[in-house]
């Protein structure tokens, strides 16, 4: 009985590896990036944003997402480019990471691709604008090169300053009486 279950599990794992992981692919500037599809809640156009006082430059503001207040990160600015254009064609990828919802503005969303382990290789110094901690690797498929981001870790990190336990970038009111 136990052997049969173990075999079944091993089979499933092998199948998963053979099948690979799904990534949402989007474009910013001249590069293509990929993130784990499981972090993506939805993709939508950009609603009017409300600026939040004291937010870092790349957090453009918050939007009303069916009653929840969701911050929006301008990924272009984060990657050192000029800010995105905010019009009817702006695309926002809404991420849900451990029940915290955050939106990120990208240039264009291409598609969802499946990458297997052997399609991915490490990418230590290739990406200048992103801290290597947040890069999972470089994916290659059909001649395209995708920079795979650990978007969940990145959004939770101090770098994004989206969380209270992260020290803010701007001068924060520390007068806690």
């Amino acid at each position, binding site marked *: 009985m136990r052997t049969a279950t173990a075999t079944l599990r091993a089979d499933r794992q092998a199948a998963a590896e053979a099948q690979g992981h799904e990534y949402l692919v989007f474009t910013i500037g001249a590069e293509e990036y990929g993130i784990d599809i499981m972090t993506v809640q939805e993709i939508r156009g950009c609603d009017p944003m*409300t600026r*939040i*006082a*004291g937010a870092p430059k790349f957090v453009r*503001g*918050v939007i009303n997402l069916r*009653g929840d207040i*969701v911050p929006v990160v301008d990924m272009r600015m984060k990657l050192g480019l000029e800010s995105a254009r905010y019009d009817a064609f702006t695309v926002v990828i809404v991420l849900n990471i451990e029940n915290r919802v955050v939106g990120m503005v990208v240039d264009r969303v291409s598609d969802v691709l499946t990458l297997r382990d052997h399609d991915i290789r490490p990418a230590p110094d290739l990406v200048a604008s992103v801290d290597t901690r947040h890069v999972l690797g470089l994916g290659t498929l059909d001649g395209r090169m995708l920079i795979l981001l650990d978007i969940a870790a990145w959004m939770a990190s101090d770098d994004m300053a989206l969380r209270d336990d*992260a020290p803010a970038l701007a001068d924060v009111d520390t007068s806690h009486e």
Partner: protein
Amino acid sequence: MTGDASSSPASGGELARFAGDFLDEAAEHLATMEHLLVGIDPAAPDSDAINAIFRAVHSIKGASGMFGFADIAAIAHELETLLDSVRRGDIALDAGLVDAMLHGTDAVRARIGQRAHGGASPEDPAEVCERLRRATGGRASGPPRGAAPAAVRVLEVEYRAQAIDADALRELLAQLGELGTVELVPGAADASMRTLRLSTDTHQDVVRTLFEFVMDAGDVHIRETAAVAPAPNPPLARSVPSAAQESIRVGVAKVDRLINQVGELVISQAMLAQRIAELDPVEHLPLLQQLADLQRNTRGLQDSVMSIRMLPMATVFARFPRLVRDLSAKLGKEARVEIEGETTELDKGLIEKIVDPLVHLVRNAVDHGIEPVAERVAQGKPRAGLIRIAARHQGGNILIEVSDDGRGLCRDTIVAKARERGIAVSDGAKDREVWSLIFEPGFSTADVITDVSGRGVGLDVVKGNVASLGGSILLDSVRGAGTSVGIRLPLTLAIMDGLAVAVADERYIVPLAGIIESRQVRPSELRTIVGHGLVMEVRDEFVPVVRLSTLFGVPSSAGRDATKCDMVVLVETEGTRLALAVEDLLGQSQVVVKSLDANYRRVPGIAGATIMSDGSVACILDLAAIARRTRLEGGPRSLQ
């Protein structure tokens, strides 16, 4: 009859699901017990109260046994025995006994709490039981036997073995064992019969009834060897009527979800209203009327739903009589509590958060406010200090007041202490401002630091707690007469009345509860004071002007004339007044408060956000934080 944890019927099995209900019920019984015990007069105890306490303990004992909570059952048993003796008049009640019972109640509560929420292990139950037994001097020792040691008789009982099953027999033997000594007599004449010899002072009829309860009369024969007068029956318990409660338990998560959904409904309806407002009223009259109906219904629904989370302040106030009693005894003072408005309701979430601050204030009142008896008498005051705790509604707020008739605050001492700490205080400062100094961190006017309220700890924490709930705190005092602390809180955190204001091209919401007035400002009312920036003259004081556009670094306001100021919203928070400079007033409305920090950080100066009728987000001001910052900086500087 209590089983140990492993063998109790409900401890692991299918009945364990009811344990939660029992814990809730037990908590209610404990609250009743404590309330009655604290209110009891040992010299002339109210027998109804005694019986009510007895019944509460009895309930706990019975139910706890079901779940294998042997520790709780044991303590409850001791309490029950004690109460039973008091009830029958076997022992007289005194303050020491009441204290012992209160400790017993605490012990049970601690164990219930541990089972419900986990946490530190409470006191060893054996010690608690021992203490209870000692409290009566060992006098209470269970149901009394006959008055004088009656002559012991020996009964021979013959019963048909098959007439009783093993469990029932076990119970019966245990029962007989309580009445005297039982032995099994071997070698009965008839193999189907068993013989017991029972040495007891109980009458034969009682024994016979016990047997006949579990088997046919024909299956048992009893023979006596000595005749004695039967022991008299003790009076049966007199029960006290208790108020029936019609209620349903609902999980908090469900209620919150319901409140959220109603909030969404309110927003949708507001958006609908806005669109419909653009239509020609004459052409669309029926539509407008139906919208008015919808708004009325939605408002009604909202009120009903919000009221679900409202609980009476009694849930908070109930603990104070006991607290004051224990604390004043510990400090060697006398103090009593008067409570007013305990039926005033407040949102459950706020109630939970206001408990600690209120406890702190009450402890302060007893510790620092109320004088020792001798001092009070010398001043012609009543022996016992009075602590008054009151709550009432005012507009969309609740006002809670803790006041005492003690020694009051000494202005000079406070001013001196403040200056010592480097806080500048002008001699002409108003009393209200001087009192608010004691809310600064590290401030304590206690000459003697007792372990009760801690070393200068607390009033600043209390103020912080209150502020974080969107409320404000005010203190007033008269030397020699007493001190009064008032806390104002919004009734609920979920929905709030606000005034929308335009700040450059952004919109913010000012909580209506803090607004004194809002109007245009005449240039003659404005003044620039060195070290304080722009101030506005309001009646007889200078109120700092805070430019919200500067405070929040609104980009579109850069380059504008900082001294120009058209509209102000005059607010008051925590005894401080501010004039918020804005571009325009956009209208008053009820807003649904949304959390900003569910997905983002906490933002200084911002209490939350809301969704406007056009679907966009607006931030709600945290007046207390803005006031604090302004006070600290000596002028309106940017929070960023």
